[in-house]
């Protein structure tokens, strides 16, 4: 599995156009997330933008594999299809973890530098952000395995628009500040739901991968 993770890392970060896309996205969002003194942007950044970036780790490897029809060659390597899919999920989780680490750093800056939110509010936002990133990863990965790169990306954009719409609607209808007062139990439940979805997503993706490549 290590070889496949390495390959996907290479596809993401060592191919100039793909690396450039990450650098562009990072430069556009991360400095703003750290510098802007706004609890609304902080929520948007921690709960939506970073989780979405974390879910991108499969797009470029899928694109590169489709271009070279690499999946057929991959099937001749001494790894099972379940291991191939699991390797891709591990990389997805790692990239989500990195994004959530950025979100935590941003939270600390908002708490101790900008004083826009309290520590407990920041941690609540962070927890919701983690669960969103797990749910997003679960949906997007099934989308890519099922639909391939092109339609998988359309699905990615669709889910992104849906999440943005939910964010917008909740801002208008209930006030996004409601997130600050979510109970820790509810946030733990959301995290658990995210983890369960991820496990189910991995099983579904293994079945889809076997079905598509047999």
């Amino acid at each position, binding site marked *: 599995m*290590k*070889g*496949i993770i390495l*390959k996907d890392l290479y596809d993401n970060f060592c191919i100039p156009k793909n690396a450039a896309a990450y650098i562009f996205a990072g430069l556009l969002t991360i400095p703003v997330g750290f510098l802007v003194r706004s609890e609304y942007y902080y929520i948007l950044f921690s709960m939506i933008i970073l989780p979405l970036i974390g879910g991108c780790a499969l797009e470029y490897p899928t694109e590169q*594999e489709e271009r*070279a029809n690499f999946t057929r060659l991959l099937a001749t390597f*001494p790894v099972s299809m379940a291991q191939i899919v699991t390797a891709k999920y591990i990389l997805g989780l790692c990239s989500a973890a990195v994004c959530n680490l950025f979100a935590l750093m941003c939270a600390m800056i908002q708490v101790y530098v900008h004083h826009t939110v309290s520590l407990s509010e920041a941690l609540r936002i962070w927890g919701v952000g983690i669960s969103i990133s797990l749910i997003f990863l679960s949906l997007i990965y099934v989308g890519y395995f099922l639909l391939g790169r092109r339609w998988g990306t359309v699905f990615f954009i669709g889910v992104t628009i849906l999440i943005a719409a939910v964010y917008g609607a909740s801002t208008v209808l209930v006030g996004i500040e409601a997130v600050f007062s979510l109970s820790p139990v509810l946030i733990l439940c959301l995290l658990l739901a995210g983890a369960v979805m991820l496990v189910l997503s991995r099983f579904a993706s293994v079945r889809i991968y076997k079905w598509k490549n047999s």
Partner: protein
Amino acid sequence: MDYAIQVKNLSKTYKDFKLDNISLDLPCGTVMGLIGENGAGKSTFINALLNITDSQYDQVTILGRDLRTQETLIKEDIAVIFSDSHYDLDFTPIFAGKMLSMIYKNWDQQKYLDYLERFGLPPKKRLKKFSTGMRVKLEFAAALSHDPKLLILDEATSGLDPVVRNEILDILREFTEEEDRAVLMSSHITSDLDKIADYIAYIHEGKLLFVRTYDDLQNNYGIINCGRQLFDALSPDDIAAYKKEAYSYRVLVTNKQKLKRVFSDIHIENASIEDIMLFYIKGEKIR
């Protein structure tokens, strides 16, 4: 271990095509050429052997191991090169080696670097800047660096010029110098098989028409140009296929030696693998 591949009654059914009950054995230390027209089932057979596609079979044993229960172990000891599936063109050879070193337990990085040097492949150049021949050589370097015992090539040399193909054939000859190794090679370029194959397996419309040694084909198959009288005198059992021409018949016979004894003044041309293929596909059969 006597056989690199043993297949008994392998079938694969699609909506519009069936690979039908293929059984064959590939002895160690030999090269088997898999021939057949486009769509005959060669790639389907290779995919089934590698479990890339689901299939039904009584037994598939590769390098003495059962495909159902020991697939991963089998794949540690085989190498496969396809014409339509390759390493990402954004890879560099050095990265491909690093990735494969994490995939194969037997990976020998030094051997890989030696192959890169021998084939004149720059290690840090992206594959998209390589010529087609260089890319195929890289595939061979990658395939041979984990000490495989079985090499499977699916049209791997198509699109290469004769010089590079000849270099590839040299690599294959070198590979099979060791008795415990074998090659299964599907190719449309039958002249390559004439140079290297010990066995020929012919798949036609999903069925295995024959598996014979190359020497057997050379000694027994031949082409006769004859008139109606001689054509009628030939035993149908000796005729694989024939083509009726304006004033004569071209007949592919399967028992050249016997016919030479029976018709002492007859001229029988040697049949190449390409001739045999063309007769089976385009020729008429005696019912």
